[in-house]
């Protein structure tokens, strides 16, 4: 019984990924759907709906919110996303989004430039940026 409980807890903790919020500069008036976010973060689109160019940023591999984002926004494991990008990178057809080292840096960069798109785990202080969408 105890073993079962531990197993259940383990299973639960694996599926318990933090929600992710998509953030932009407060002056950005564009709305974004999950499909548009997928297109931007897979290199298929490089502009917002109003035609302004978009620069997506990723959190580094080490950040747990990165795995949540890859799963919830792109529907893939981080490893599968890397495999997808390695095809494009090593044929010279694309460059994955630049990575930033922390959620604080993400907030700072997004709040400084209307073209930048980012994400942080929900619950993070998002003062200075606009939350466009919550992925859960």
């Amino acid at each position, binding site marked *: 019984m105890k073993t079962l409980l531990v197993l259940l807890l383990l299973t639960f903790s694996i599926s318990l990924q933090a929600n992710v919020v998509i953030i932009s500069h407060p002056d950005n008036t564009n709305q974004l759907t999950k499909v548009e976010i997928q297109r931007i973060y897979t290199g298929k689109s490089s502009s917002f709906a109003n035609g302004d160019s978009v620069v997506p940023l990723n959190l580094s591999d080490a950040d747990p919110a990165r795995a949540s984002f890859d799963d919830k926004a792109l529907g893939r494991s981080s490893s599968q996303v890397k*495999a997808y990008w390695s*095809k494009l990178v090593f044929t010279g057809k694309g460059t994955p989004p630049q990575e930033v080292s922390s959620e604080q840096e993400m907030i700072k960069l997004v709040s400084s430039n209307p073209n930048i798109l980012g994400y942080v785990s929900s619950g993070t202080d998002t003062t200075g940026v606009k939350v466009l969408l919550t992925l859960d």
Partner: protein
Amino acid sequence: MKKVYKLNSFSCFVAAISIGFVSASQAEINYRFNGFGTIAVGKVLSGSTEQSSYVNYTCPCFITDYNNGGIYQSNENWSFKEETRVGAQLNIDFTDKLSFVTQVMARAVDSKLSVEWAYLSYDLSNKLTFQVGRKRIPLYYYSEFQDVGFAYAWLRPPQTLYGWEASNYNGANLRFSDTFKDWDITANIYAGSETVKNAPYNALYDEVPQDSKWTNIRGIDVEFTKDWFTARLIYMTSKNSTTERPDSNAFYSPATDQTVMGLSLNGDFGDWFILSEMNVNKREDKADNLTIRSPASMIGVGYRIGKWTPFISWSRFWDKSNDLDLYEPERFTDSSITLRYDINNSSSIKAQVNRLKDSSLYNFVGDTTVAALSYDFIF
């Protein structure tokens, strides 16, 4: 010889970069350095053949890489040299429109450095890009990234399809990409030529070293993607010739006309994915009135379960010759089962077993069961 040739063409691009540096000295230049590699061991577990000596190989044997001459022979133990390789790539952005990409490979099978990519790329608009230099021939779906093991489900793409003399060309291409409604479309036209000194492909068929060349390469590839669906169409023509050694160092003339057509259809449903390719390679030697048609096809199905990806595939290469005295057809089917495990976000291990059934009309490699293990990584 091969190395010298490639370094010569490479030096042209080094000069091109230098010019780029001078003209872009005011702008901010960005560099990116990435790489990938595979460490693999493999072995012929069992097999049968009517004649164990084929060219200078001990068979039953299994060709892992026609392009670079990898072959597992039945008299060898676990061997790492056929498929182990590492690649390094440098991208330089001179401006937001002009960039340079180069990729160099080192392979255990030939212990040489080969330049796989070295080209300048210029964005004429957001939809149109012009590129010039050395590139991979964008022939079949995996042709351009067949060295990047981390990027695909197999341990190696099936050699029923991915086995020709040339896999690169020096030339130019124009790429167009756009979105129509929900469809992403990329179309690319290219032209160029390639000479392979002491071609490893030819060494799989003849003990006499031969150079191989593809000239007048002209091709188009178009890819359509929507949600889970990807379709890719290709058409390429070239004039192929080899040297007539040992009688002469001259290339055989007239050249053989090669035409390749192909369609790949892929479906990715998240957990399940299906891969398929259907191609026809036609070679016409007009001097001898010889026509060889080589249809090749592949279908594979995989399922992702967390870090694991079991995957099975079946493929067939089936030569048809109009003159059996001049050319005896090569025919075989290759079935494989692969298990991939993602160790982390940048490395994986794979185990693969292939069953090759050789139905060629001459003494070729024989039937084999082959096992291989690989560690694939990117950096």
